[in-house]
């Protein structure tokens, strides 16, 4: 039997009513293994205006590069204090901030190794279907061999890199639309 997947629609401007109960802006617990990272930024539209009704969802592996999911059958340890899911709303000026750990490398297709990365889903009024992008870490040596970064035009790769500022906080923005700095989004 073949069915057709249900059509996606926007979350609209009032998603908070139904979704904020599951907000997780700190993915870690005290016992969670790995290097803490704070990631902050802003969601911006094609006019350069901030988007004050967006929401991000994060999915990532633990510090060992293991996903808390039955499809991950790698011989790596789960971290019982890390599930790898975040739900992060933006504030009145489109800003978000969340705390997590830097994930380990994970396998890619055909034997490749993927550099440490977070999968990010972007929801908002005006997005009839959520966007999918990734956060990589600027300066990470494994980025050079990452198979997905290699598929991204070189001049656009920097939109996927979170960059550490002077106090170690990583900066990463979501530019929904723009002539130059538009964030790379993936056809998933």
């Amino acid at each position, binding site marked *: *039997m*073949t*069915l*057709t*997947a*249900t*059509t*996606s*629609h926007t*979350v609209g401007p*009032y*998603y908070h*009513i*139904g*979704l904020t*109960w*599951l907000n997780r802006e700190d993915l870690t617990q005290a016992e969670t293994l790995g290097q803490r990272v704070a990631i902050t930024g802003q969601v911006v539209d*094609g006019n350069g205006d901030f988007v004050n*009704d967006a929401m991000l*969802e994060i*999915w990532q592996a633990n510090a060992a590069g293991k*996903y808390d*999911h039955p*499809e*991950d059958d790698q011989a790596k340890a789960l971290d019982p204090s890390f*599930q*790898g*899911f975040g739900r992060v709303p933006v504030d009145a000026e489109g800003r978000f901030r969340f705390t997590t750990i830097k994930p380990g490398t*994970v*396998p*890619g*297709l*055909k034997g490749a190794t*993927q550099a440490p990365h977070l*999968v990010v*889903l972007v*929801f*908002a*009024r*005006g*997005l*009839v*279907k*959520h*966007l*999918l992008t*990734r956060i990589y870490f600027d300066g990470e040596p494994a980025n050079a061999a990452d198979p*997905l970064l290699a*598929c991204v035009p070189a001049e*656009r790769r920097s939109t996927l890199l979170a960059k550490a500022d002077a106090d170690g906080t990583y900066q990463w923005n979501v530019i*929904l*639309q*723009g*002539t130059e700095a*538009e964030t*790379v*989004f*993936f*056809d*998933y």
Partner: protein
Amino acid sequence: MNDKPGYRRPQAGTQPDYLHPAYKSTNTRSPSKPLVFLPHSLSEITGPTIGAESLHEGDNDLTAQHAGEPQGERIIIHGRVLDENGLPVPGILVEIWQANAAGRYNHDRDLHDAPLDPNFTGTGRTVTDADGWYQFQTIRPGAYPWGNHDNAWRPAHIHFSLFGPSVLTRLVTQMYFPGDPLLAYDPIYNCVPDTRAKERLIASFDLDKTIPSYALGYRWDIVLRGRDATPMEK
């Protein structure tokens, strides 16, 4: 090690393009550059598994969250969550939110001149059972005006959010009611060209689920993406 199967790509005309000019907000929020094709790796065939441990008794009854009963027409919405291969999707989180019977959201940004209902918040959640079934009790939401174009009204709808077994099955959508004259004018409902895909967003009246002298029943099934039979690349 062979790669595991990815998920089926969307069937033509059944999923919206990001730019849909009739829905004004898409004009400044849709990407203008080409999307980069994403092969489905372990990062995407896995996903958050949030389920029953997060829920409380009564989370799926939106009519029983306050001291009194909400205004409006009491309804039962139920249905089955399947994947494109026709298999039930058990144990996944289903979240809903909606306007009240007067068409007003319990949200500080909703400025529609219609009354709030102190007995209605408009949020619910549940987890599908072993055969993929879900059920909510709520009230039928009202239509409401919005600023998209002159005399624009959203048809009555309930927002649904589902996780499914992977990142790729994540779905946020809206359920509509049969016979609503506003559907023909709504740019969100009409954001895909495929007529059958649109019509599958409309629940059907379900007399068998209707509780005599109490609540009308509606049935709405949801289909999440399904796995490819074999890996696309080996």
